[in-house]
């Protein structure tokens, strides 16, 4: 078997694996699809307070091991470990160990999100996350909303009953969030897919959240500038 044949075979195998992986991921954790321009249904109400359900959510370590195993199996079937010289693609030196570990470590960090607070009306949704910026989507007239900063672009919109957020950041970093509400409205899924320019395979983590109620208060507060929070007693 000459080198050319080996590469061809490897490419064929890669295509088959990618196709299979694609089909699998389409069933399990679908890749973020294009945000649809025309949406004809009512917007799903996801508002409320949500806490992470660790039992249902992906265990990061397990997912990471599977991810590494998958990469290793698909691209270097004869090698036991991924080492610094591991390369992905047809000769392009991308996807070395540092990049793969870096992507995984980064993904773990941004997918922790133990608590979420979602505020929503007919035209806007704000997903507040601890120690991070809020994911903000304005979907008035069901249009795609785009926010640009010098450091990247945030795009969002509805795809069916899923709300999609796409972050296109510098250094080829891409983060996709798919937010889905269960039919009974008691469970929320956020599937996060992270990819970078130097790793050919994106890493996807799925987290589940369940509703929790903050004890109702008869004090209603609003933020003001001169008096900070101004509170008043509601009801009696």
């Amino acid at each position: 078997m000459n080198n050319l044949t080996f590469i061809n075979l490897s490419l064929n195998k890669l295509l088959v694996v990618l196709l299979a992986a694609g089909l699998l991921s389409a069933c399990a954790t679908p890749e973020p699809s294009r945000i649809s321009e025309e949406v004809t249904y009512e917007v799903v109400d996801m508002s409320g307070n949500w806490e992470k359900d660790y039992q249902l959510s992906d265990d990061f370590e397990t997912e990471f091991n599977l991810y590494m195993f998958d990469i290793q199996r698909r691209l270097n079937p004869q090698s036991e470990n991924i080492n610094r010289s591991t390369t992905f693609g047809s000769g392009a030196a991308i996807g070395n160990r540092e990049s793969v570990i870096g992507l995984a470590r980064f993904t773990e960090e941004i997918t922790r999100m133990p608590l979420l607070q979602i505020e929503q009306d007919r035209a806007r949704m704000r997903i507040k996350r601890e120690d991070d910026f809020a994911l903000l989507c304005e979907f008035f007239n069901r249009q795609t909303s785009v926010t640009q900063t010098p450091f990247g672009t945030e795009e969002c919109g509805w795809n069916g009953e899923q709300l999609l957020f796409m972050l296109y950041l510098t250094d080829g970093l891409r983060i996709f969030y798919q937010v889905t509400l269960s039919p009974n409205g008691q469970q929320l899924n956020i599937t996060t897919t992270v990819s970078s320019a130097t790793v050919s395979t994106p890493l996807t983590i799925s987290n589940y959240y369940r509703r929790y109620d903050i004890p109702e208060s008869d004090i209603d507060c609003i933020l003001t500038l001169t008096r900070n929070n101004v509170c008043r007693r509601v009801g009696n």
Partner: protein
Amino acid sequence: MNKAKNIASVLSCVCTLLLYCLGSGLVQAQPSNDERPLLDVSIEIFAMNLPQDALTQQAEDVYPAVRQTEARYLPSFLKLILEESGTWGAVRLLPEPDSGAELQISASIVSSNGTQLELALIARDATGRIWAEKTYTGTAVESVSLNQPLLGTDPFLYLYQSIAYDLAEMASSLSSAQLNEIKSVALLQYAALLAPAVFTPYLSSDENNMISLARLPADNDPFLQRVKQIREHEYVFIDVVDEQYESFFVTIKPVYDLWRRYRREQIASEIDKINREMRQSNDLRRGSYMSLLESYNNFRWARMQDQYLDEISEGFTNEVLPTDITLEDSLYHLSGTLEEQYQEWKSILKELYELDEQSP
């Protein structure tokens, strides 16, 4: 080339400052200055000039939350500068044009990106005379003032000073009689809005819409006394609003300064973006954890900054706690936004006046 431009820009600013100082001196140097009437100035919240759709906003690098803040912050600064000059009577900041303004200043924010500020400004007195109608452009100049930390450190100080200079120059070119006429016309215009039938005949306008006094009511005219009283009551509310704007200014200044500095750094860094990226790739291996984290944190910081400004703006909007004003043994409870409260207060005053007109 850039250096030469910078030097020219700094020189221009210094000249403007000198002219301003000189200008203020000219006004104050007039022998009869003490007896000259001082005009009250009404500054309307600046027009945001906000593009309607999000895509245009991005193309023009306009951040709605910041622009909304600027619409209140920039006129607040101008107000302070005018007050500092000592050339004017009361300087008031209002949510809308003042129907009885002696000198009304309106402006639209043409552009503001931290490095450049461009304001299309028009200043018109009660008679319709234009005092200034031009676009003021300023380039940020970092400065430190130990004497006036609030005013002296603004990077666009010179722009405001050139506005103040233009207005002061115009004021010094008018005679006391002309200034007095402006004051009288302003009062009668305000009165004519409350009771058109009574007060419109006192005013006349020419083909250029310049308004002048046709005649004057008697000093002890009971209607006029009543109008003056109502106007004082309106000022009571405006003072309440004014305090809120001032408080907003003081609160927002550090955040807004930080924002502008951040924007200036952004713009400066865009020039050598490619070099930076090359340097970055040397410092941080592309695709490494640190590199990804830096990329994310930059974006996170920018978004959090935007969202913080959003919250601050919301905080200002919430600064609409009901205002209670006592007027002639009655307590009036106003609620809604500042703009709504102002409208409500004016309609209460108008209603009261109409009742009086009908009463025997």
